[in-house]
């Protein structure tokens, strides 16, 4: 069972502000969903892992060099920024 304080803590970790009403509603929903997914606690799992779904996936490397001209995409990317100062994103002060 999760408490309202648990939900508030999870919401804080998730960077989402919730109203008291939302906290109360989510508490019940989280409880019912967790009790459903808890079925996985019952299954007997093999000692050694079986074949993986990622097949024979391997790390894909690229040459360690500049992939494109510096600044080639800067304008396009920054065009979507809510607050911009020249080529910087503008955010609230984070150091006192």
């Amino acid at each position, binding site marked *: 069972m*999760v408490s309202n304080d648990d*939900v508030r803590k*999870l*919401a*804080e*970790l*998730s*960077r*989402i*502000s*919730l109203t008291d009403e*939302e906290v109360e509603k*989510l508490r019940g*929903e*989280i409880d*019912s*969903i*967790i009790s*459903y*997914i*808890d*079925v*996985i*606690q019952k*299954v007997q*799992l*093999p000692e050694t*892992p*079986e*074949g*993986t*779904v*990622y*097949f024979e*996936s391997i*790390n*894909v490397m*690229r040459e360690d060099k500049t992939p494109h001209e510096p600044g080639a*995409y800067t304008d*396009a*990317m920054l*065009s*979507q*920024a*809510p*607050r911009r100062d020249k080529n910087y*994103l503008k*955010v*609230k*002060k*984070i150091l006192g």
Partner: protein
Amino acid sequence: MTDLTTLSVSEMASGLRKKEFSSLEIVRQHLDKIGKQNESLNAFLEVFDDAEDSAKRADEMLIKDPEHTHMLTGIPLATKDNILIKGKIASAASKILQNHIATYDATAIKSLREHGAVFMGRTNMDEFAFGSSTEKSAFGPTHNPHAHGYVPGGTSGGSAAAVAAGLVPVALGSDTGGSIRQPASFCGVVGIKPTYGLVSRYGLIAAGSSFDQIGVLGRSIDDVEMLLASFAGHDTKDGTTIPNEERDSKIPLKKKIGVPSKFLEKGIDPEIMDALEKTKQKLVTEGYEMVAIDMPNIGYSLAAYYVLIFAEESTNLSRFDGMRYGLHKEGDTLFSEYAASRAEGFGDEVKRRVILGTYVLSAGYYDAYYRRANALRSVIFSDFKKSFDAVDAVIMPTSPVLPFKIGEKNSGPLAMYLADIFTVSPNLTGLPAISVPIGFSKNTEKALPIGMQFVGPRLSEKNLFEIGRAAIRI
């Protein structure tokens, strides 16, 4: 003038080359139909104002250099709102990205653009592809073209409805846990989720990165097969795509279909059970043998899927902070700006899943949930792998329920999750799966489409198309 909106892609392509009609005429007829029907269907979130220009360019290509055209040159298609087209809004049906303009083309889009396909518009979906009915869109639900007031399925519900209503012949969707197959089933069209790694995910707004695949919806298997082949391929921008030289494995068709009888014992609508029996009989008359198979762990797939998907979704959505792109809300501190932007921008289902993902990934719960679910993932894969020694594919209904009324499953989120029982296992295991339209319900107020699903081994798409053709051959 003949109605061009009922033609298949190959009929359109052939007519274009015989100069029976132009791409502009095809596109205009589809735009007219969209104009008449979209207000009540809400399949498209936006119809692109440059579709006619693209059609004119395609017509020029067909006149000037017909030998270098593709079967898709001048063919209209729709794309789901989570696939990036440079210069167009890509919102994933979320308020947080409502005004977000894509700064580059998805790899799939780049291929289709090179082929001269005409992008008609972006289709409605559940916000960030979290849902199973397209009711969770921030921009209103889509209606099922076969039954107004009913859901089209989800999350690619807009694409499925557009194809079923004849607003486009084919559409792109994405499938994380059934999001192409289930709406295809609900709308009476064909839908395929390819093998994980067949198609590049570059430019697809991520939901669950180890599950997501771009795939196709269409009115015929031929159209779906052709469209999928046109943009599948290795991509250096997606390290999980399969190298091209590993792709031409031809898997011999044994003409044997696995039936996981125990898994199909309960919880399925009787009309869907009837359709399953009829499909099995039909395949027998087509020379297939039905083989009872045991998949002891498949019953755990839904729970394992939700643990992993919550974890991946919450991780993927951490990038939405209101700073780099998307909706931004003012606050007193940086933290309050994050929390307010996300609270305002995300809908209820998205908030719920982000918080559940945070829960299952919490230090104290990681072993009990994430690690266990991941182990189950390979156990379920091994169930499938053993079955494929004896059979070409496993048959299951696409959905245990018929299309339901808009609002009917809003009592709690779990009810909606349970409807994904048959579609999640291919995503958990990276396997390809197709949904084909089998028929309609008889004992319901309105005749509602029913779809049947076939799951095959890795890279067995060709066989799945073949089996699908046999299952729906008249």
